[in-house]
């Protein structure tokens, strides 16, 4: 979601490490395990590239351990394709999104750019990236090869701008030893509202505040975003013309979450990352956090933990999610060879996204996701069912600041500065003006 968000988080993560880093540091397992299946890649649907040798520049923001895995994959691609040389440049997401438009318009940009789904509309509207409908057609990629949620997320104005690589949703982490101490079954994490509430009550009896409410986007805001969708609410109306996050379901969802504090299941004034640090040190039992924490938790063998899809608290399942997409950057001089080589690369990497999954992401591609090898990554694949109901951000340009407004309103509610209703009403009033400005600017 949120350009600010993701990037701010990432900035923090990079600069500052620790909990924050986790989002970035999708680190973990080294790559390089290609299970001998090298080479099937550029075959059939992929439209091999047979032209003269081309150099492709690729930019991404994978600065954590995921960056290493990505580079390993690119190296493998390069050795398998004599006439394509892909070179990778990695920037912090924050810098990356600031730098890309300027570089592209001055002719120094990359050929391929990795981009979060929520950025696609803005960059498409600003003319930085190209339409990819023909790429998808050439590669014979269609909705059936992906999950519909993530495939549709690559569209803006009914045109495709991104080929999804993966998705990273929010997951439900539970601390097994804390659950055990409270007499709960550590292998049966709650899945419904009643289970969840009952578990919190048990935890409270054993002196544990089970579910901390972080007022910050990471991760309280993302939790609220998931809840709002579970209650049937939306951030915006269908045309993204009006903000709707003060609807009754939204206020109910917010109230339910913020009331955790009143009911003694969360302390007030939880700091950035405190809910996650508390989870790791056994001070709380449950936290809703990104899939990127899996590899971080694996580095702490002393923590007994599990991860499952988010419990369904509202009337339907939903989970905050975002997705990395491949895009092709518009060039001043069109080079058809480069474009076709880029297609081969995108297709190849998409087919090899199992290795990418080991970096802590759910592959967007269905055949990879349904393969036995992906299922052998228990934590990551545990969250795969969320793809069906992932709440991706809507595709409209310039939404970053509006979604920041949304998160700031939640912040005021979570810190008790305003009632949920008041905070969300104020936020919507401001968001509507921002949407109005965006409409004027992007003429949508």
């Amino acid at each position, binding site marked *: 979601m949120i350009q600010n968000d993701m*990037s701010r988080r990432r900035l923090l993560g990079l600069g500052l490490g620790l909990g924050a880093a986790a989002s970035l540091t999708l680190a973990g397992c080294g790559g390089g395990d290609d299970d001998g299946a090298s080479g099937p890649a550029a075959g059939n649907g992929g439209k091999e590239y047979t032209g003269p040798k081309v150099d492709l520049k690729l930019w991404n923001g994978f600065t954590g351990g995921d960056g290493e895995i990505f580079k390993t994959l690119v190296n493998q691609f390069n050795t398998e394709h004599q006439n394509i040389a892909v070179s990778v440049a990695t920037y912090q997401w924050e810098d990356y999104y600031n730098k890309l438009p300027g570089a592209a318009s001055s002719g120094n940009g990359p050929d391929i750019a990795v981009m979060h789904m929520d950025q696609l509309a803005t960059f498409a509207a600003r*003319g930085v990236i190209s339409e990819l409908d023909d790429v998808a057609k050439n590669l014979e990629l269609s909705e059936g090869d992906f999950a519909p949620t993530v495939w549709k997320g690559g569209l803006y104005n009914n045109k495709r701008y991104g080929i999804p690589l993966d998705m990273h949703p929010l997951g439900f982490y539970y601390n097994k030893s804390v659950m055990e101490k409270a007499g709960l079954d550590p292998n049966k994490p709650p899945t419904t509202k009643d289970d969840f509430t009952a578990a919190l009550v048990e935890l409270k009896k054993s002196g544990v505040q089970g579910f901390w409410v972080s*007022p910050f986007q990471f991760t309280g805001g993302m939790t609220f975003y998931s809840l709002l969708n579970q209650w049937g609410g939306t951030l915006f109306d269908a045309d993204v013309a009006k903000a709707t996050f003060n609807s009754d379901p939204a206020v109910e969802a917010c109230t339910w979450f913020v009331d955790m504090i009143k009911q003694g299941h969360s302390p007030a*004034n939880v*700091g950035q990352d405190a809910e996650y640090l508390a989870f790791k040190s056994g001070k709380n039992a449950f936290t809703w956090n990104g899939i990127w924490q899996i590899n971080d938790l694996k580095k702490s063998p002393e923590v007994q933990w599990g991860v499952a899809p988010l419990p369904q608290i509202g009337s339907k399942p939903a989970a905050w999610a975002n997705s990395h997409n491949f895009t092709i950057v518009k060039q001043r001089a069109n080079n058809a060879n480069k474009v076709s080589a880029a297609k081969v690369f995108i297709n190849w990497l998409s087919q090899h996204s199992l290795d990418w999954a080991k970096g802590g992401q759910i592959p967007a591609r269905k055949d990879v996701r349904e393969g036995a090898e992906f299922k052998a990554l228990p934590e990551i694949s545990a969250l795969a069912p969320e793809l069906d109901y992932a709440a991706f951000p809507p595709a409209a340009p310039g939404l970053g600041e509006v979604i920041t407004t949304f998160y700031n309103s939640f912040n005021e509610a979570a810190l008790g500065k305003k009632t949920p209703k008041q905070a969300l009403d104020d936020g919507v009033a401001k968001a509507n003006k*921002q949407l109005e400005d965006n409409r004027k*600017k992007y003429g949508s």
Partner: protein
Amino acid sequence: MADVIEVGAARDDAPPSAAKAPRRGATAGRTGRATPYLFLAPYLILFGVFGLLPIILGVWLSVHQWDFQLPNRPFVGLDNYKQLFSSDSAVFGDWWQSVRATAIFTLLSVPLLVVVPLGLALLLNRSFPGRTFFRAVYFAPYVLGVAVIGLLWRFLLDANLGLVNRLLGVVGLPSDTPWVTNMPWAWISLVGVTVWWTSGFNAVIYLAGLQDISPELYEAARMDGASAWQRFRNVTLPGLRPVLLFVITTTVLASANMFGQSFLITQGTPGTETRTVVWFIVEEGLRNNNAGRAAAMSLVFALMLVVVSIANFRLFRYKED
């Protein structure tokens, strides 16, 4: 003053070396009036490219709706400025909120950042064993980057897990103070951290100033029976006046430009109450791609700082009279 004049006079009187004189004359003749400008050129070029040009460009941007990536960047006249002052625009609330945050931070931090380092410098100017060590200790935080101190204090000040509340609890004080998430604690934390972080720098400047004050003046004052306070008031303070002016002016500007601390420690919370002007300008211009509006904000903000700086100078000139 007398010193300066003497030195200058001495230079003028010094006979030019016979060997050099004709050559100098020849050069001057050839380059003529260009010489001073040639000497000034490096500075003028730098100032032009990095000072003047951006200002002109900023004015140009501020009258357009400017996104360098969009094909049309319509001229909007004073619209960007009007938005800052009309309460029904999207940016009005955030803008004045950030001005308010910046003003609060400046008013709270500047007095402390002027007085605390002065006290520190007076102490460190005395001779006592370990003086160098303490000088280093007080200066040390300043060398750390804002990212480091930001992260450090965010964790130390965390309401539920932080060391600060833990220690307060141990000595029987309230241990649930929301240092970084609620008012007025967030301001107290930001000001406190900034004083801890940057006092060393001002202290070093004061120290240099103190060492420039002639010991004879103190000796004379002592002979006249002046008390410590009288010596401070009548010798130290007047001696430090130019240094004070420098410290106050730069500190006001530095505080008004605060960004990193609130970005990292409080993250603007609660709501956006600690989001400062510079942060908001960065957000508007670089993140939200509203460069025109951000330029208008920068210019209005710069104007505010000019007014404050002039007031500063006036104040000091008045004192000197």
